[in-house]
Structures are given as C-alpha cells and as structure tokens.
C-alpha cells in the first residue's frame, strides 16, 4: 500500500515479479475510469460513488474483499504482500478478513508493517526473500 520505490526492487531481487499492485498512489487509480458520455462534473462525481478506491471510504461491508479478490485472480498472482503503513487503521482493520479470504483461495500472504522512510530495510529483505522462496515451486 505504500510508496517507496525500493520495495519493487527488493521483491524482484528476491526472484519474484510484481504483476499488479493496489498501492495508495498506484494501480488502484485505474478503478477510477471516468465516463465520457455524460456531463464531466457528473462523471467525475459518479466515479467516486461507483468504484471502491480505498478502505477509508465506505462502500458497503464487502467491497474491499470482493475488489481485491477479483483483481488478484485476474492478475494470476500466487501471493500477496501487504505493505501497510503503521497507524493506517483503515487498512489494518480490513487486513485480517482480506488475508483469510485470499488464503481460502489458496493465495499466500505476507504482512509487512512499514514506516516511510523505512528503518529496517534489511529485515524486510529477509522476510520478502523467505516469502518468495516459500512460493517458488521446487
């Protein structure tokens, strides 16, 4: 969910490929496609009401789980790394149910609680490496 560019390199150096993301300033914004056939102000307003963008906005109790599951399945990802900012309660409240939903579909998950800037890159590297190794078929 976080912003530092180094996370992608750490993951790829560990031997995995990031096939999709749900970062706060990343691919999640592709959910906000704007209609072009109606009044622009109406269209801009409508996209916020019809898309699940971020857990800080309430769009029903199941929007986050459903959206995440759909995108993960579409991407063909084998695992999901949760990069959550410390104190981001919107993501931390949703995390346990997201984790169990993914794991019930056979998708492995890893939780990394980070701060920006990160103070323990070394530890993150080790945990990501371990996660990737676990996913790598023998």
């Amino acid at each position, binding site marked *: 969910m976080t912003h530092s560019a180094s996370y992608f390199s750490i993951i790829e150096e560990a031997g995995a490929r990031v096939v999709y993301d749900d970062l706060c300033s990343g691919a999640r914004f592709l959910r906000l496609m704007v209609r072009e056939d109606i009044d622009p102000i109406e269209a801009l307003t409508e996209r916020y009401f019809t898309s699940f963008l971020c857990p800080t906005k*309430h769009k029903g*109790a199941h929007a986050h*789980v459903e959206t995440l599951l759909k995108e993960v399945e579409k991407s063909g990802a084998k695992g999901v790394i949760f990069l959550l900012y*410390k*104190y981001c*309660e*919107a993501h*931390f409240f*949703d995390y*346990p149910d997201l984790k169990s939903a993914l794991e019930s579909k056979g998708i492995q998950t890893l939780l990394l609680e980070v701060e920006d800037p990160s103070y323990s890159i070394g530890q993150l590297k080790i945990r990501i490496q371990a996660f990737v190794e676990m996913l790598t078929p023998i």
Partner: protein
Amino acid sequence: MQVRLNSAFRNPKSEIVEERVMSARPNESNPYRKIKSTSAYRRLMMAYYFVVKHSNWFGKKVAWITSGGPVEPLYAMGVLPFYPENYGAMCGASRMSVALCEVAEQKGYSRDLCSYALTDIGSSLTGKGPLGVLPKPDFLVCGNNICGTVIKWYELQARAFKVPVFFFDTPFVHDEIQEHTLKFVQDQMKGYISFLETQLNRPFPEKRFLEVCSRSFETITLWRKILDLPMHRPAPLAVFDAFIHMAPIVTLRGTRWAVRYYRKLKKEMEARVRKGVGAFAREEIRLIWDNIPIWYDIRNLSKILSSRGAVLVADTYTSAWALENLDLSQPLNGLAGAYATIHLNRGLDYKIQKMVRMVERYGADGFIMHSNRSCKPYSLGQYDLKREVTRLTGKPGLIIEADHTDSRSYAPQQVEKQIQMFLDIITGKD
C-alpha cells in the same frame, strides 16, 4: 497471560524530581460522600443488560449502535440498542480489556487500533467478558460523528455476523454547520427510517417516535442540569461520579427509565447543594477533564487528586450527551441537527471555546487532558487546545498519556508524579 508495560517509550524522570514530588505530597484524608442513587443506578443498568442479553425472551430485536448514533428511532420501533463502546468501557473498568485485545491481536488485528474495537472483536471471538456472550445483532447502526474508526469496526462486524449495517454519515463541521450539510444529514435520517422499516417489516410509528423524542429531550435536559450543579461550591457531583452515572443517558436515552433515574439523581444533588454538601469533604482545587476516562484507573486517580483536595468538577465527555441544538418542533430534522453537531464532530475553535467557557463557568483552577492513544479525533489537537485554553484563561493544563481501556499503554507512577507536580504548580509550591 503476561501483560508488560512497554517502558521504552516513556520518558524517564530523574531521581531528584521524584524525591521532590514525594516530599511535597501531604498525607491528608478527604472523605468521599457516596451517592445514594447509586443503588438505583445499579438496579437499572442490571435490568438493561439483562433485557438486552435475553432480547429473544422479550421478543425484541437487537441493534448494535455507536455512541453517537440516533437511538430514538430504535426505541420507537421497539428495537433494543446495544452499545459496544459502553461495553468496552465496562471491560476497561473491570480490567478485562487487555486480555480481549490480545485475542484480537492474535487474529491479526494491529495493536495500534482503537482498544474499544479490539475489546469488542476479542469479546465476539471468545464470548468472554463481564457480560459473557453478547446478544447477536439483527443489524448494525454506525454513525461517524464520533470518529471514522467505527466505520471499519462496524464493517467487519457486519461481515462477521452477516447482518446489514446502516451508515449514518455526518460530515465534519469545521466552524458552523452549513445548510447543505444539515440537509444531507436530514436525508440520512429519512434513509435510516426506511432502513428500519425494511428490517422490521412494519411502518415507522410516528406517534411513538414523538413520545420517545420527548423523553429523550427530557433526559438530556435533566442531565444538563445535573452537570450544571457542580458550578456550586462545593461540587455535589465529581466528574468521576458523572462517568459512572452517565450509563443510562448513553444506553437508555428515550426510555421512561432514564427519565425517572435522572429525576432521582437530580433531586439528590440539589439537596446536596442546598445543604452545602460536596462530593468530597475538602475541595481546594477545582479542575476540568478532557477526553474519555481512563476506565481502569478512575478510583486511583480520584484518590490521588482528592488527597490533595483537588476535585474534577466538569468535563468535555459527559457533557457531550447534553446535546445542543435539539429542536423538537420537527423531531427528525431536530435529531439530525443535534447528532451532526456533537463535540467530536466539531473543529478545534469550537473545542477551545467550549473548554474556555467551562473553565470560567465552573471556576476551575486548571485542567487535565487525557491524551488517549486509542482516540485520534479526541486527542488530535490537544496540545494546541491546551496552549490556547491557558492563554485565554490564564489557568494551567496538564496532558497525561494513557489509553481508555488498554492498560498496557499506561504508566501509573509516571502519571501520578505528573499530577502531583501539576497540583504543586496550582497551589504555588515551586
């Protein structure tokens, strides 16, 4: 289960200061006068929890609702409200909260989340706590006028219990409430009524609603008058008493029981005022409290203060239930306006003015602010609030760090030292 205090994030105090504080403290007793109405209070709350826990025996549905949610339509429809936050306070006061939080943390919930929510999640997972297994909600009502945390908390409970949640959205009021905001909240009330009609499969009873609103209004008026009485010297009611006696206005607002109870309490307090009897025998320092109580340490804090003749006479939390702007000429719109403008939904300027007025009206010598780890909306801005209130009133303030129910985030000896030093400042002993 081991509960250890993380002392690493507490500032260490020097031994010299500790010596000074210990020698400055007089060891005088200050008898506390027990409130007679407390036995009636206990019977009332036991009855309430009994009925709510066995709602099916009474053929009633149960809704879980946030503390700032409009409860009047629920009572009008004959639905019993249950308040997870009120239960969290009970768990905190019974010192059962930490164990329940730890259960939630085992399931993957971050320790940084609000401890009311963690307590509730832990209690739902284990069926443990002062009330044991809680009554399952038939639906949830979530109002974000108190905070945004409740949205996430109620979403997860909606998933866990597989029940619908009605979200009552009250936009933040930075200065004064705007016309379009008020209209938005009024529309929400209409949506709420439709939601209830769908859930209960019967029409909304207008007449009964008017009765419930009028009882709610009377309860609020009684509570406000009770909280005004500590303006007298000595204060007949201390804030720590109000923290206990607020349970009926939170959970039973709209019922005859609440009206009867507060009439009784008001009578007893007015008698004290006439006789010049205070909550404590000695009242030398009058203080204001800000934020939610430290539920598990009320008695101890009360003793620390009273042994120095210090009494908390007013606070921003109990007074939040003395809803302002309640216009009953159009009850649905009146409720919308009142719930949209509660204390926690207002900007910093409002909070500053409110505390300044409180310090002046109650003749306070200072104020104590609980910097509550769990509650951002209540704690954010407290340093600015403290500075401004001191600037405008000339009275000193103290900020103490704790959590409302999680005692792992509380260093009692530290806090006691801070309070003693603060009282020294007020009494001029430097």
